């Protein structure tokens, strides 16, 4: 079966079953998995990296890893956990590799305040007719504060508020204990509360 060809695969097939088919080089199954996860993958990668091109590239790389290593998916965890683990690791690696020249660029631009650079990369706040301008500003500052969290804390917060993963699944994605995730979330929430109080 090739790409984009008609297939007997339906939406009812579980992610885990599709992954097994991908391991057997069923490209239609891979196509279906990509369709299910592409939006989430790109959005999470962008939230972690705050760069559309990087998010596009890294999320594609995550799918490529799935294609290459689907045979190693043992099925003792959910496919989504396995996929998020690949994606988050790629994002964290990407950040580690790129951080030094990003800092350099901020300095060279004369931006001075790293917070300004973070804010510039933010999209326009989500417009809610019921919100005041002040509330939108608070949200912008809040998300800027999220961007300044440590990589692990940020990943934990994003997986919780954006992907709505429970603590146990976040722990599986980040390969740490649930207690550690709770500490990450607690510290992150502490920082964010202070951000809101200062406003």
């Amino acid at each position, binding site marked *: 079966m090739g790409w984009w060809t008609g297939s007997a695969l339906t939406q009812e097939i579980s992610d885990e079953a599709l992954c097994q088919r991908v391991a057997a080089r069923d490209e239609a199954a891979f196509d279906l998995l990509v369709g299910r996860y592409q939006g989430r993958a790109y959005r999470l990668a*962008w939230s972690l990296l705050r760069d559309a091109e990087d998010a596009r590239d890294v999320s594609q790389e995550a799918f490529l890893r799935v294609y290459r290593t689907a045979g190693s998916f043992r099925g003792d965890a959910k496919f989504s956990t396995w996929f998020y683990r690949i994606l988050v690791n790629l994002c964290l690696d990407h950040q580690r590799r790129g951080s030094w020249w990003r800092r350099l660029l901020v300095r060279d631009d004369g931006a001075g305040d790293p917070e300004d650079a973070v804010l510039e990369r933010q999209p326009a706040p989500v417009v809610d007719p019921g919100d005041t301008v002040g509330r939108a500003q*608070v949200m912008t500052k809040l998300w800027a504060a999220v961007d300044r969290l440590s990589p692990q804390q940020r990943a934990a917060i994003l997986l919780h508020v954006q992907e709505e993963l429970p603590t146990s699944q976040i722990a599986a994605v980040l390969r740490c204990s649930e207690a550690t995730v709770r500490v990450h*979330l607690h510290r992150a929430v502490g920082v964010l509360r202070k951000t*809101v109080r200062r406003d």
Partner: protein
Amino acid sequence: MTDARHPDTALTGYVTDALAPAERAQVAAHLDDCVDCRRAVEEGRAVLTALAGHVPAPPELDWGRYRADLRARVQAAPRRAWWARPVPAMVAAGVATAALVLAIHGLDRRPTELAAVEETMLGARLPLLQQYRVVERLDLFEDLDAIRQLDRLGNGGG
């Protein structure tokens, strides 16, 4: 400063609904009496709810192009070299066993046919070899040229 009497990290666990029932009950009991922790829980919940309700959307993407590029990357992905491809365990075990048997028994023994031919040739040359005084110590010769010279002498070359 963290007060040992306050649940601390369990407060966020309480907000995110990550506590076991017994611990959750303990925190709930504490919250009944602790204004500071109650406020921390309320603020934490407010922050997380606000974030969840206002997740910034990433820039729009051309999904058709995204998938076309991904397809190209998948097809361009280098195939593994034959020696790096996963081999079924039984086949790998069989090859390894055969190699081990060959290494122990095969390499130091020549095939029977070859040994027979060699013996025949040596037998034919036996009278010639008997003429050499040095033949008893032939195994000490490491210089192949010297051995070839002896061979030419035997064939009437000298």
